[in-house]
């Protein structure tokens, strides 16, 4: 049985208007994402991918067009976002940060505690529960951010280059952890990145975006069995072709936006 798409975006357009000048950040974006699908959005910086995510996250309004997120449970929030670095609140402890979404929904204390403990454990931060973010490394902070989003148990997850500021080693470790939690919860994920490796490793489908106006140019299915290993992707000739394909596309886009 083919079910309705989890996220469906129709003809979404966003224009920024400032001092008699308008910039079209997104133009007629139409897109369907299946339930449980992991989709990466790749494009040059300034192509409007963050804008698209912010609209889905309810942090910005579209200029025209629509999107719907299919509800499976009335009590579940629509979406939770994993922000770029600095997204966790410095005045809350690690535990309070992970519990943030749940406590904003005023759920029973025992339930909050249980879910928070579960996800703290999942990201390996149980020992750091009572610490403040200033005592954590960059990678640990992003773990908190991921745990917070998963703990909130929303319909979909939105991730805005969550690993962009991490060093290579940490990035791989966190990507692996993310996949392992994701495979357990089977959430629908829309993930923004400018790293081709990351997109190939994580996603079921890669969407390529162009810059100004932001459009979706093409998509690419990544049909590799899971659980995946980074080494396998690196040594897979098919993936190497895909890498180059995306690479060329990005080159053209970056060159184009310079003119």
């Amino acid at each position: 049985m083919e079910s309705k798409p989890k996220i469906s975006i129709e003809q979404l357009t966003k224009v920024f208007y400032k001092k008699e000048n308008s910039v079209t950040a997104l133009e007629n974006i139409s897109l369907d994402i299946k339930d449980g699908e992991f989709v990466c959005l790749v494009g040059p910086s300034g192509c409007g991918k963050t804008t698209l995510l912010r609209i889905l996250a309810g942090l910005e309004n579209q200029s025209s067009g629509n999107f719907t997120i299919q509800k499976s449970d009335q009590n579940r929030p629509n979406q939770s976002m994993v922000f770029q670095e600095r997204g966790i609140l410095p005045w809350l402890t690690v535990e309070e940060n992970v519990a943030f979404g749940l406590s904003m929904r005023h759920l029973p204390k025992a339930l909050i505690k249980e879910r928070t403990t579960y996800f703290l454990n999942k990201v390996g931060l149980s020992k750091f529960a009572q610490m403040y973010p200033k005592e954590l490394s960059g990678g640990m902070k992003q773990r908190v951010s991921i745990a917070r989003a998963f703990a909130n148990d929303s319909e979909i997850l939105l991730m805005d280059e969550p690993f962009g500021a991490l060093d290579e080693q940490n990035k791989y470790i966190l990507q692996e952890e993310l996949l392992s939690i994701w495979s357990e919860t089977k959430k629908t994920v829309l993930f923004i990145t400018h790293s081709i490796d990351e997109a190939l490793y994580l996603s079921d489908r890669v969407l390529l975006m162009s810059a100004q106006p932001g459009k979706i140019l093409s998509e690419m299915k990544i049909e590799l069995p899971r659980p995946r290993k980074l080494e396998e992707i690196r040594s897979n000739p098919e993936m190497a072709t895909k890498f180059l394909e995306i690479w060329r596309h990005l080159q053209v886009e970056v060159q184009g936006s310079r003119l």
Partner: protein
Amino acid sequence: MTELKNPIETEQQEWRKQQMQQRLKTWLTIFSPLCLLLIWQFLSQSGLIDARFFPPPTAIVSTFIELLTTGELFQHISISLFRILVGFLLGVIPGIIIGLCMGLYAPVRHFISPLIMALMPIPTLALLPIILIIFGIGEVSKVVTIAGSVFFPVVINTVAGVISIDSIYLDVAKNYGANRKDFFMKIALPGSLPFMLEGIQMGQAIALLTIVAAEMMGARSGIGYLIWTSYSAFLLKEMFVGLILISFFGYVFSLLLRWLQRKLIPWR
């Protein structure tokens, strides 16, 4: 060939040296006021400065004990502290609430900030005559004077604190569905706390400045009154007792607020 030193021993010596330096700094901090008092004592006793105008510290201390035993001093201190405390709270609490509202809601900010900018430069002490007319010579007028001067630094710093909150935290709150009350308590209040406490620290200093002047002009008791009447009667030892008390309380309040700062902002 030179003998190789034990690396741990070397580091241990280095560490000890640093500890010594740390201790020296602490001693220097304690030493400087003591030094001043000693020089004062010497100059005053040897007649190099006029002991009528600058009585030696030992004489001031004995006057202090005298005033303390008669119970007169205790009365002055307690009434002044009472005025400072009440006035301080009456200035700080509205300052925080109005500051948060101004920081969070741009229309409120635009409406109120010209009023604050216009009223702030007027010294509350210059308004004392009007305050006395409105609130009479009783306690209310002193408390209002202090509240008025404490209010401004607190409100201005609180607004600055809210505005300085990184917009990503506002996004986080919105994304996770914080309602208005949660937003106020979990984001705006803690986010602006560091700036706010700086404002309160400033307010504290201003409260002390104000209380002395206010009690000099329109009171029958308090440390400021003690200073003024002692001066008028040329009882300079008593006057110095009052001055030193003010400096002592200023110091204690600063320490208290620093302590409070560490307790309230453990995440800094």
